[in-house]
């Protein structure tokens, strides 16, 4: 991918956002941060963001609901939920429905954080190439059909 890779982290706790930026300082992707859902949605509309890391427990909206909102406007974004082991059944159900790509527990391990996020960017790239290739195949199929028609017409 030649476009800049961008990660958006959403958490109401500033200390968490700053430590995430530090932990990911050497990664090839940019780290953007938001502390509430409005900021998050604004940043998503102004930037090309491939992966979002969202905290489950926030005062204005819970993480899974924010992810729903984000997917409604940006369906290709890969969501990761960050959660203390409190509402586990609720979060696990969301994972099994496919609403989130990955789950990270609080407190997290920096190595696991990096691995999971890299996998998500890789997934985004694969999904993107897949859709580009599918479009190409459709296009070529159409061209083929048109050429066939032409040949038949002339034959």
């Amino acid at each position, binding site marked *: 991918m030649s476009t800049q890779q961008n990660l958006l982290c959403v958490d109401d*706790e500033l*200390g*968490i956002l*700053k*430590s*995430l930026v*530090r*932990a990911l*300082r050497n990664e090839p992707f940019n780290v953007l941060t938001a502390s509430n859902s409005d900021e998050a949605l604004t940043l998503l509309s102004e930037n090309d963001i491939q992966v979002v890391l969202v905290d489950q*427990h926030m*005062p204005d909206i819970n993480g899974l609901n924010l992810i729903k909102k984000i997917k409604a406007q940006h369906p290709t974004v890969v969501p990761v939920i960050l959660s*203390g082991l*409190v509402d586990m059944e609720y979060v696990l159900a969301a994972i099994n429905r496919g609403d989130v790509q990955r789950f990270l527990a*609080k*407190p*997290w391990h*920096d190595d696991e954080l990096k691995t999971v996020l890299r996998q998500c960017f890789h997934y985004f790239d694969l999904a993107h190439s897949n859709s580009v290739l599918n479009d190409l195949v459709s296009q070529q199929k159409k061209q083929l059909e048109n050429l066939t028609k032409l040949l038949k017409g002339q034959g």
Partner: protein
Amino acid sequence: MSEQDLIAENTALTNALLRERKARKLAESLLEERAVELFLANRDLEESIKTLKSSNLQLLQSEKMASVGQLAAGVAHEINNPVGFISSNLGTLRDYIEDVRQVIDAQGFAVKAGGECQDVEQYSEVNAKAIANLEALLEKVDLDFLMLDINDLLDESIDGVSRIKKIVADLLDFSRTNSSDYKNSDINALLEQALSVAWNELKYKAEINKDFGELPLVYCNSGKLAQVFLNLLLNASHAIEERGSITITTKHVGVNVRIVVTDSGVGIPKNILANIFDPFFTTKTVSEGTGLGLHIVRSVIDAHGGVISVDSQVGSGTSFIILLPVAGLDS
């Protein structure tokens, strides 16, 4: 009187005496039986009182444990956040220190480089290489940014540790109560303590408004009052369905201190308003509430010589009003 009459009278008297003695003995034995019964009944009563007292204590204890348990999940989450970023920051700091160490090594090397060379040309060449190495390293590491970020990292982490310390201290303070521990206390400080213990639950539900007046110290059992305030705050939060407000007002009124806790929750219907302080009365499910909270609240307030009343409107909210005598009971 004839001899026969005398004998007859004597017999009659003796019989009467015997009857009287028999009756008296019967009365004495009946009295003794009654006395024994009374003694046994009294002893049973004393046993029952002892049992009741100890079950009462157990119930109070379990209600306190229930409210502490309720908070455990919220507190664990509240501690998890700072633990998360502190531990991540420490990992980052270790990497930073490694970078700084490399810079120091490279600097040391550059200072000594070429020292063993015999001629000036060789010396300048070796020296220049060492300096170039150092400069490349400084750029890669971004030392200026690093030094600034290390300060931020330490400030944020130390802040996080203080928060954890406070959460644990508040919880300990709250769960520790000595039933005979009466002393002069700052009511506003107790309310702040109850607020910070309940904060994890409250912050998702309500905006907190505080209108604290200047209060004299109140002679009271601070542990029990903190439990009372915590109970009222949690009830207020549970009454709010999605999002609302909780207002806490304190004021010195005459010989009393008045504390009002108001929520913008669902309100209490008029027909059950009179029952809310009854023991075991609750509108919550078995897992959510024991129904003892307000009963305990009222008994604690009574023990302080105070009064608690409630004002509520279905659909707009509820206010609990507490009046506490400044000088305590027996004032």
